[in-house]
């Protein structure tokens, strides 16, 4: 039992502990419970296996323009609406449209190649790689403000 607790503690220190839940209430309760138990702050994030979500850690007009271009391309390809949110460090893009998981994965794989080639400069490669590794995309909910939507 002690070993188990130590294991969990190590995972928290490394920032790897992730708990998924379908229910918002359960997630919020878990967040407060973990904060009280371990005395470290936790964040709430939204995740999906069918909705494309991108993260940029650069706060510049070029980064925003790049995200807008990706958003327009996504809307043209799959339909739906693209939303861009301002976060303290950069921007979040959420493509509000159901995309079959196979296509969703394909998109992220192509995006990874494009980032490595240098065609796409500002989208966070670590986020894309983590998304492909976990098989679901996650965005932290931190003081988001809607700044752009298309169409």
């Amino acid at each position, binding site marked *: 039992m002690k070993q188990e607790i130590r294991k969990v503690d190590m995972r928290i220190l490394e920032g790897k502990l*992730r708990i998924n839940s379908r229910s918002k209430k359960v997630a919020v309760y*878990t967040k407060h419970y973990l904060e009280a138990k371990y005395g470290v*702050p936790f*964040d709430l994030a*939204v*995740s999906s296996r069918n909705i494309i979500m991108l993260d940029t850690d650069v706060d510049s007009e070029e980064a925003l323009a790049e995200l807008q271009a990706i958003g327009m391309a996504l809307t043209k390809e799959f339909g739906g609406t693209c939303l861009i949110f301002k976060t303290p460090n950069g921007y979040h893009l*959420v493509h509000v449209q159901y995309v079959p998981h196979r296509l969703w994965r394909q998109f992220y794989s192509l995006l990874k190649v494009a980032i490595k080639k240098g065609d796409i400069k500002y989208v966070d490669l670590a986020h894309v790689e983590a998304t492909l590794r976990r098989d679901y995309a*996650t965005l932290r909910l931190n003081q988001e*403000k809607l700044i752009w939507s298309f169409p």
Partner: protein
Amino acid sequence: MVRVKPSPEVTVEPDPDEIDVLKEIVREEEKILSVARARLKMFEERKYLLEHFLPREYFFYTVIPSKEEKKK
């Protein structure tokens, strides 16, 4: 029949110090209210995103350690 004698009107001179204190309190309250309003707006926007746009079947919530904690 009982007649009630009207009480003489009393006017209190406002104490200038007290006015300053009250103004300070009002200012503080307004600050708190503005923060609360901003938070409420933020919450509404998030709620809008989560509950209006995204269909429930296609997303779930994740609890993750805060970034500040990761840096340590």
